[in-house]
């Protein structure tokens, strides 16, 4: 039977020749991921059950990124729980402060996720790695505990929706705009339980940072995973990072799709998602003039070097408007260093922005930029739910880095063309 790329990866990891949609399988995972919010619960399960060893100490990644550097005593305790577990169980890929970055930027950067892998992570944005041609999905802490013990997890084989993008992108438009536009068309449950496969000539030439941003937000359409067929761009990215073999899968020609959506990417403008759902996306022109208090450039969606470069390009020679706070958060220590070496820090500092150490921070309303009642932010993050960045009566508008930086300069939502 013809299978999609997602189905092929699942079948291979379950030791089956083929799988069919709806079938529930047990499959081997290549990597299991936890962070400082979700891992402590999984760790408590292992400790309670008296488990002495994990399935493979090299195939577990523990990243304290959400509330680290520890924002308060309680988060310090959670991080300590992870640290002690990593030490007691001799976990290879535990990332202490200094090496720690936002998990979904860090793991691909370190070559820990490779094409053809099956990855589960106790974090919803684990779907990011689909950009590398891996099957990866978010699970809960109990699943993480199960995977750490047995190296396995259960999966219900999904059907897929195919998204075909054609045409050349407009200036400044990137992966974030494509995915916001897509979610705006299909809604926050438009791909519920299903796989989103991104294809077409636009995707074929899309840089890895943009692919990661797209797959990152598949969960915002309810999808189980987002995935892009690995190609030359993928191989270029993993070259020098991979320290083990990997497999390039692609969908069979006759694979079945629930739906096929074709979008003319050349007609897609810069996007802004209005509060309080990522599906409320509109062209930036319709958001122009909405006054703002804060801008955040960072997160697992848009905290990569390419994103900081774009923000820097827009900001160069400008200052952040009076009354607006701008926070830039490089997603990993490597990105931090590269941005510094390239002179981007000078641009940010000259503009009056602050630069944070790598952390999830304000993205989930944790720390480092919480909003007060009635305040409004433009953020390159992925969720604008009620209270996501602070007070339940604050608002988050989602965009890519170019719109975020331009808005910081103007003091209200703006396009780089407005400067």
């Amino acid at each position, binding site marked *: 039977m013809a299978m999609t790329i997602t189905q092929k990866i699942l079948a291979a990891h379950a030791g089956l020749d083929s799988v069919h949609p709806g079938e529930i399988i047990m499959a081997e995972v290549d990597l299991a991921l936890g962070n400082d*919010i*979700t891992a402590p*619960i999984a760790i408590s399960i292992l400790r309670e059950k008296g488990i002495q060893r994990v399935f493979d100490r090299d195939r577990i990644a523990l990243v304290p990124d959400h509330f680290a550097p520890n924002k308060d005593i309680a988060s310090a305790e959670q991080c300590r729980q992870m640290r002690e577990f990593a030490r007691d169980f001799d976990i290879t890929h535990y990332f202490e402060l200094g090496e720690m970055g936002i998990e979904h930027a860090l793991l691909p950067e370190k070559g820990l996720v490779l094409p053809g892998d099956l990855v589960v992570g106790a974090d919803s944005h684990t779907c990011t790695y689909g950009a590398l041609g891996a099957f990866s999905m978010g699970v809960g802490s109990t699943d993480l505990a199960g995977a750490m013990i047995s190296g396995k997890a259960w999966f219900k084989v999904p059907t897929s929706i195919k998204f075909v993008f054609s045409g050349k992108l407009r200036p400044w438009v990137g992966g974030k705009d494509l995915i916001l536009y897509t979610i705006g068309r299909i809604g926050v449950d438009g791909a519920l339980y299903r796989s989103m496969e991104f294809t077409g000539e636009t995707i074929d030439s899309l840089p890895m940072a943009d692919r990661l941003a797209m797959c990152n937000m598949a969960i915002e359409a*309810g999808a189980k995973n987002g995935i892009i067929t690995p190609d030359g761009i993928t191989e270029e990215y993993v070259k020098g990072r991979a320290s083990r073999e990997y497999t390039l899968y692609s969908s069979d020609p006759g694979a079945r799709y629930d739906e096929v959506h074709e979008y003319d990417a050349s007609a897609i403008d810069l996007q802004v998602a209005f509060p309080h*759902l990522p599906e409320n996306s509109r062209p930036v022109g319709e958001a122009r003039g909405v006054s703002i208090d804060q801008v955040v450039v960072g997160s697992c969606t848009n905290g990569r070097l390419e994103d900081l470069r774009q923000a820097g390009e827009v900001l160069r020679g400008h200052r952040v408007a009076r009354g607006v706070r701008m926070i830039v958060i490089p997603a990993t220590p490597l990105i931090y260093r590269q941005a510094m070496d390239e002179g981007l820090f000078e641009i940010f500092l000259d503009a009056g922005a602050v630069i944070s150490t790598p952390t999830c921070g304000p993205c*989930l309303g944790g720390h480092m930029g919480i909003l007060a009642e009635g305040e409004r932010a433009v953020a390159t993050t992925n969720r604008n739910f009620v209270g996501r960045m602070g007070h339940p009566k604050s608002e988050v508008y989602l965009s890519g880095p170019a719109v975020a930086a331009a808005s910081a300069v103007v003091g209200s939502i703006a396009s780089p063309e407005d400067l």
Partner: protein
Amino acid sequence: MTKQSLYKGKAWRFGDDIDTDAIIPARYLTTSDPDELAGHCMEDADPDFQSKVSAGDIIVGGKNFGCGSSREHAPIAIKAAKVSCVIASSFARIFYRNAFNMGLPIFESPEASAGIRTGDELEVDPAEGIIRNLTRGVEFRAEPYPPFMVDLIQSGGLIPYLLKEVS
């Protein structure tokens, strides 16, 4: 399987796309203590929910209940708030998964979701997948659990199931 008892309680109806930040805001995620989490259950959707809900009550959502983060704190908070089960027209997939792995009973039924208002007295028969709205005298069918899920529940959840497998 031992006979499952009925869930009986008052309905609390919420809208579509109730996300995990509404179920348990991230500002409380510095703990995974069930009792503390229960004290903030549904806080950003209805700040008074905690003072109104009683043991056994049932949360009823629209479509895509539990969307957003993968935090198990969400089903933990709901369970610890002594809510007996959740009914929705559909669930976000990670929430659906977490609920099963942790033993929070959930039922998918668009008809029930549409036919229940806050304050209605409900009775749910999990074995039969039947939801009765006692206040309005109507009955709805929920999706039956797939066989693997029944296995999981019979083993007592994911961890006991896997421990049995690896040993």
